[in-house]
Structures are given as C-alpha cells and as structure tokens.
C-alpha cells in the first residue's frame, strides 16, 4: 500500500472493508499530475438567501501495469458503476482518514498510448484509467462523540445542564449533521403524547439560553389580575406568579417590565413555562419585547394553550411564544454598533375557556442568531403514541429512530417540524425541552412536565472537511 492512500471502502469507518485500493505500488498507483480533489461549487449570488454548496468532482488518473496489475480492473469496474460509495483519502500514515461520498458518474477513458509489444508478441506497458467521481461537497471524518450519556436536567434553574447541554469543541470546516440520542429517566410516559423540542445553536464562543424566572423577586411588574410570587417547589426557581383573570378574561397585559439582565442583540426563540390551576381551562398568550430607542413594543402572534381536560391539576408545559429579534431589525453586521442593554417585555394573556388561573413559571430565550452564534436548527417532534425508551434524531439521514427496552431499533413515524440537529465548528449548545405546546385536544393522558425529570443525552457527529487531514 502506498501513500497517500486512495481507496474505495464499504463505509466511512477505519475498520471498513477495503473494496479497491488505488495507490498500491509501482505497478498500480495514482499519478500526482492532474490529481484533483475538487471543491464544492457555491450557487447563488452574494447576499442572497438559499444558496447552496454543489457537488465536487474528484479527478485522478489510475495507472495499471499491463499485465501485472490490469487484472484488478474487473474489481474496479462494478464499483465505478454502482450508485454510490465511499472514497477513503489519507495523506500519510498517522494522518486522520477522511472519506468522500461519491456518486455514480461517467467512467473515464483508458489510455492506450503506452502499450508495446515484445518480440515474443507479448503485450506490455501501462494503462491510465481516468477516474472522475462526483462527490458530496464535503469530506467526512470519523464519527466523534460530543457527549456520552450526559444527564440533562429538566429544570431551567438547575445548577448542572439546565434543559441544555454545552457540547464542547466541534471541529471541521463546515456545519455537520448531528445524531442526538435521548433516554429519559422515566421512559414510560416520556414519549407518549409529548412534543419535544431540540434546538442546537453553534458559534465561535459559547452562548447558552437565557432564563428569566417569574415568581418571587423577579423584578417584573404585575399586570391585570396577576398576583405576586407564590412559593412552590415544583416550579422552576421555587415560585410562580398566578394570573386569575378575575376581572378581565380577554387579552390584557399580565406581566411587564425590564428584564433582569442585559440581552445580547440577536434573534431568539422565546418560550414560557406555564401551568394551570385546574384541569380544563384554556388560555392564550402573546409576548412583546421593546427597547428604549424606538419605544415600540413588537408583539408576536397569539399562542394558544388549549390542552384537553386532564385528571390532574397543573399540567406544566412550555409554550413557544415565537421568534423575536432584539433590537428591531438588527443584523449580525450591525451588532458591533450596539451595546447590550436590558429590554422591556410585555406578556399579554387571556383565558379562552374555563375558570382557572394560569401560572407563569419562567421565560427562556434560545439564541438562534446572535453575534456569537452562527445559525441554529430547531426540531419539534410530536409523539402520539408508542413507547420507546430511547429516541435518536439522526441528522445524517433525517430519520427518527426509537429503541425499546430490549434495544431493538425501529423507525419512528411521527410529525417532525423544523431542521434536524446540526453542529458547527466552534462550540455548540443543545437545548432540550420535552413538553412544548403539547396541545393535542384528543389526548387526555396526563403527562406533566416535571422539573425533577432527567434525560440522558448522547451526541455524535461526523466532522465535515474541505481538505484531507495533514
């Protein structure tokens, strides 16, 4: 085997079977002249949305001695005509191997210009076979584990991994799909009729979600029919505020005021954790954010919490209030002009049916795009039955897999909305919530979102590279 190692293999793993070795010895090798790994072709004009990386073309000439190595061609032929495959590229012994996913493309020509015939009518010489492979834009590296069975706590006020997991250093030249496996500690009810939210945001520096507690000492101003903090250990931060709707049940401001800390400018997904005081009331909420420059409060759409009647009181859930950019219209490039200040918020609420009160527990802001986060992907997965103990969101194939107690995996069929998890070079943070907008009106199973629940999370990914490893 010669170096660099160029080979067609069965799968992108170091232990995979080698299907065809291109660079073996002097009788069978790869010419350095004209060797081209290509590069992803970008489409779309500068500044436009939705541009994408096109395929790369890998070209080289594979030389085979006639007759010593030519007999290997029947092995190569079927590989070049198969739908897809993996090309291993390893520059030297000790360098990390990388693989290109190659696709069926036109086979190249075989050169005949170095053939000769001996006096004894023996044909000998060398053939060059031009190889031109269409490959995925990026090379993939070996699968790496970013987190291995780490416990994530379901309480945003927890001291360790509060509804989120910092994934540490992600390597690569481009964002890569992630494979996230979650195993809740109480599996029997953790998936039936729950709606999970898994959001990953990445960037050069770590930025974790912002949590603003609502309850005793929160610093907010109570609105119409909103009481003070009520102590209760089953709520995050140990307390909540109750809105009774006793005088006004139509939409009115229930909470307002300046937030506890300055907010880094950017785009955030805002969620609120709420519960109800009875078993059947339904509510609607709308969130608004404002700054001292425009004095204008931007409200999001009204969100409804219309859970079916349950047998147990409480029913805590997160409600996705929408995505908000703060301050208005700011783009990443403008952020350098801005200093971080604390915005003011306004929470509108109404009771659409029933006589109960809504309990406001805390607000969480997940960064989707700030000055230190690149992009984010958010996946919402709605489970309507089935009882896996483990669920895997596989970003590589965009499949959802479930495994039972005996660990047999099955493809799960439920509604997913949004992008599968991806990690980008730098630091990534995974935010995990298990009960978001759970409002299937046909479901009457009680599945409270308990702040003492925990989930074991494993995250793996294959880095994406432009070039082979040194």
């Amino acid at each position, binding site marked *: 085997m010669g170096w660099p190692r160029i080979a067609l293999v069965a799968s992108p793993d170091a232990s995979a079977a080698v299907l065809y070795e291109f660079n073996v010895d002097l009788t069978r090798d790869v010419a350095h002249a004209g060797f081209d790994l290509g590069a992803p072709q970008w489409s779309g*004009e500068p500044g436009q949305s*939705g541009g994408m990386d096109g395929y790369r073309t890998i070209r080289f000439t594979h030389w085979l001695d006639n007759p010593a190595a030519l007999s290997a061609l029947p092995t190569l032929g079927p590989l070049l005509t198969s739908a897809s495959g993996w090309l291993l590229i390893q520059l030297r012994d000790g360098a990390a191997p990388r693989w290109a996913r190659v696709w069926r493309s036109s086979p190249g020509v075989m050169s005949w210009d170095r053939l000769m015939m001996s006096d004894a009518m023996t044909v000998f010489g060398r053939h060059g076979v031009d190889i031109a492979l269409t490959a995925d834009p990026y090379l993939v590296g070996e699968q790496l584990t970013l987190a291995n069975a780490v416990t994530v706590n379901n309480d945003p006020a927890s001291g360790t991994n509060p509804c989120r997991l910092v994934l540490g250093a992600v390597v690569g030249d*481009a964002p890569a799909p992630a494979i996230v496996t979650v195993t809740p500690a109480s599996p029997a009810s953790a998936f039936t009729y729950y*709606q999970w939210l898994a959001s990953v945001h990445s960037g050069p520096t770590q930025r974790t979600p912002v949590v603003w507690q609502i309850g005793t000492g929160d610093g907010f101003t109570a609105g119409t029919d909103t009481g003070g903090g009520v102590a209760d250990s089953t709520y995050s931060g140990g307390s909540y505020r109750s809105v009774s709707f006793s005088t006004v049940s139509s939409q009115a401001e229930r909470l307002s005021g300046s937030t506890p800390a300055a907010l880094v400018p950017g785009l955030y997904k805002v969620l609120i954790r709420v519960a109800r005081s009875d078993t059947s009331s339904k509510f609607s909420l709308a969130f608004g954010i404002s700054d001292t420059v425009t004095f204008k409060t931007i409200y999001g759409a009204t969100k409804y919490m219309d859970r079916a009647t349950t047998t147990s009181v409480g029913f805590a859930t997160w409600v996705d209030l929408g995505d908000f950019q703060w301050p*208005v219209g700011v783009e990443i490039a403008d952020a350098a002009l801005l200093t971080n200040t604390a915005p003011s918020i306004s929470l509108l609420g109404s009771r659409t049916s029933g006589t109960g009160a809504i309990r406001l527990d805390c607000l969480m802001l997940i960064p989707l795009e700030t000055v230190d986060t690149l*992009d984010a992907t*958010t996946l919402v997965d709605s489970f309507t039955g089935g009882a896996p103990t483990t669920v895997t969101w596989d970003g590589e194939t965009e499949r959802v897999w479930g495994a039972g107690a005996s660990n047999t995996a099955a493809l799960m069929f439920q509604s997913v909305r949004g*992008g599968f998890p991806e990690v980008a070079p730098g630091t990534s943070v995974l935010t995990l919530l298990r009960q978001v907008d759970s409002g299937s009106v046909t479901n009457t199973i009680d599945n409270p979102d308990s702040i003492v629940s925990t989930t074991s999370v494993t995250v793996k990914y294959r880095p994406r590279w432009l070039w082979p490893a040194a």
Partner: protein
Amino acid sequence: MMSSVCPLAVTLITDIRRQSVTPAVQSLSFRKTAPGGHADATVNLAIDRDRWPDLGDNDRLAMSDRRTAAPVWDGYTSMPGTSDQRERGQSFDLSAKGGVDRLLDDRRALNYIDQEGTNWTRPPIPPSRIAAWQQRPTTTAIGILDGFGVGQAIATNDWAGMDYDFAGTDMEFGAIGASLVCGTTDTAYQVFVVWSGGSGGPGSVGGATASTSAVAQNGYVNDGTFPDLTDFRFALYRVGPATNITSDDKWAHFSGIKMLGRRRDKFGTLLSGSSGMVRNTYVLASEVVADLIGRMLPWVDPNTATITATTGQIDQLAYRDAVSASQVLDDLTLWEPDMLHEVLHVGASGKHVFNYRHWPTTERYVISTRDGWTRSGSDQGLCNRLIVSYTDPDGTSKTYTATASVPELDNVGRIRHATGIALPAGKGSAANAVAVGAAVLADINTAVASARLVVRRPVLDLLTGRMVQPWEIESGYLVRVREPGDVLRCTQVDFSWARGSAAEAVLTLGKPVLTLAQRIQRLQALA
C-alpha cells in the same frame, strides 16, 4: 446551517408514516394568496417512487423552517406522477394544494338572512283564500298578504297563510322580524304563527287580535315562544263564528320581513334566543364566518381561529342551492372588501389555523427593488363621460351621464365615453347612479396600482421586528417598496427554490379596484 440541502425542511405524512424527505428535495415551490392562505405547492423529490407505495392522493406535505421549526406551508398531495431521467436517476414531481382547497370541499344550502318573497310559499288552502307575496294593500311597504276576499263564506278556524320552509337547507329557523298591520281591528280575527319540523313537533302561538295599528313581529329560536323549527307560517285565523265576508279589509299584511337562519358559533354550537342570534335585522360577515367554521369546516381549529368583528350590515344572504364555504367568503367581500380570510398551517391539534382579519393599514415589510421590480402601467385610456343605466323602484328604465373633469381631454375639447355600466337589479336609484358614476369614472382615470417584486435576500419585517427570509414572507400584509416609496398590498407570494439557484420569492402587489357591486354596497352602508 448546512448549505448542502434545501433551506426548508420538508416532511411527507401518509397513512402509515411521517418522514422527513429534505435531503431528497431537488426543487420546491409554493404559493400563498390573500385572501386565501396556503394555496398550492410543488416539490421535486429524488427518491425512488417504488419506495413510497403508500404515497397517493390527499396525503400531507408540510414545509417548515429549519432554523426556528416554524411552519411555512401545509397542504395535501395530488396524485404524483413520475419522471425518469436515466442519467440523474429517478425523481418525481409531487404537487399539493393547501388548506384553501378544502374550502371547496363541502357544499350546503345556507340561509343566513332572507327578505325576498320568493321563498315564501302558499300552503294547502282553498283557492279563494288570499295568500300572496309582493303585495301592497295600502301605501305601506311591499310584503305578504294573508286574507279573506269579499264574498267568501268562512267558518271558525278557517285561515289564510304563507309558509317559509327551511327544510332542504342546512339551517333551521333562527329569527324573524317583520311589521304587521291588518285591514281591520276586529276581535273575530287573530294572527297566528304556526310551525312544524322541530324537535318538539308542530305548534303554534296566537292570540294577537287583528288591528290596524302596526305591530312589530319579532321572534328568536328558543326564546320561550318559538322552539326549534323548520317550517314557519304567518297566518290570519277567523276565531269568531262563521260568517260571510262583506268588506275588503279582512287581511293581515306582513312587511319588511327578515327571516334569519339559525347560526352556529365557531365551535359548532347552535345559537339560541336574542342573546345568541343578537338581532333579527341584519347579520355581520364575522358572524357568517363563525358559522361557516362551526358548521362545515371541521378541519379548521375553532380554538385558534381568529375572527375580527365586522360592521357591514348584511340584509340579504341566502343560498337555496348548495354552496361552498369558498363561495360564501368571496361573496362576503361585497360588504367587507377590506377584510380577508386565510387558511394557514396545520397546528398542534391537527387542524388548520384560520383567520378572518382586516387588511392592515400600516406596512409590514420594507423591501428594496434590487432583486427585481416591475410596475405595470394602465391600459385603459382617460375618459370624461360614463353612462349609468338603471331601473328605478317603479320599474322605469333610466340613464344618467356622469361627468368628470380630465384636463388632458378637456383642454383639447375631447369628449370620451368609457364603456357604460348598469346598476344591478334592486339597486337602481338616481342617487346611486350619481354616486357610482362619479366613483367609477375616478377609478378609470387613476392608474391601477399593480406590481411584481422579486425578493432573494432577507428583508425587514416590522411586525415581528426582525429580518426574515424570502420563504417567511406572508401574503395579506402591506409592503413598502423602498426606492419608489409605494406602499402596496401583497396579494400573492410565489416562492421557489432549486438546487443550483438562490431561493426566490415573487410578490404580487397591488390594490384591486372595487367591483361595481362592492361600490354600491359601500355607498348604501354609508348612507
């Protein structure tokens, strides 16, 4: 975010599975309209059709934003075809229609408010009795006349009446309003309301002595007097002893009749009494929309449906032939041209989000023209005369010539007529002709505002306060086009993306000219 796949996440939901197909998307496009909502979409998928034997008609196609998981477009598939390109492998085009299409699904005969006499019928009574509509016994208004003609011999409990039947429509009696006056004041005659077809069986209420003083007749379903019923009869009864009619004043005249069907609220609950039906003189477009949702749109989520209260008074809205919700919503624009309906994505309940709201008056998007902008001119020349023809209430045909001052024509002494218009039947009057003529001429002489704007990069959304991608632009809002300064309604968004090209949204902007019928309705509402 990974840039080697489609910027939108695409999921297919069939009877047996729900699966992301984002990596296989080669191209996609969708359309949103206002009014309307999510209209149609096409996706080209590079997957083996044979691997999806369960994919067929009426499966669900859902598109969402990968960054925020927000829904972008939801709809139902049509039978997919297949294209086979051997060099590049098999791919097929999947087309889908959004929730807007479901407004055409169901058809019902709907009777919201009816003041026309054509739906009143003569019941089985002897031919000598008087029971007819469009009668005007005195100088009072046109209405139904029930009575006994001179020379008839009548016995106790003989009666003459006219029926209004809801059977055959999807509604039952909701409310009635009318004014009653009789030819004579005579205790031997009483006015009755007789009904049948309800859960309580036939019944009646009477006892109002015939009187020459006008008496209002008001009633609501389940108000303590009227139960639920489908057949309603106004009748004049002889309660005194048998007699011969000798004077031509033994009649009861019901005028200004407004018959209302029983509406439902958006949850489907039938409304009762004057508190439920609210009034018996007109209905509001917002009340009709709520009824449509509760009655024939079970796939719309009533919990999240937002219906803005309207003010236009609708005094005639009855469909004896079955009609779709789409048709009713279109007709409501006659009274409320500045309202729009939209059927949006499927929510957590599995049902569509539905809104009935105003066209906003402040702009939502601020967009530059740098990616493409076309504004059409007007192909209708200037005119300074318009002939309006109409039939006045007495039945005489008349015309009126409207005049407008147009300097370009007037300065050179040119008189130019636009194509004449005719006021619809029942709306003819001199006042209407003057007002409508002036308004139509003014429209003809103003360039129609319609334009096309291409968006390929993030734009500012003032409603949410953030930059949004081309696929997040919603129809049904106002757009300020930065360079020319126009503020126009966005009536349609056509988004498309394909491998190898940028994502692009083409916005159709403009403010449609009011139709003749809308213009007249508006004038009457203001009068």
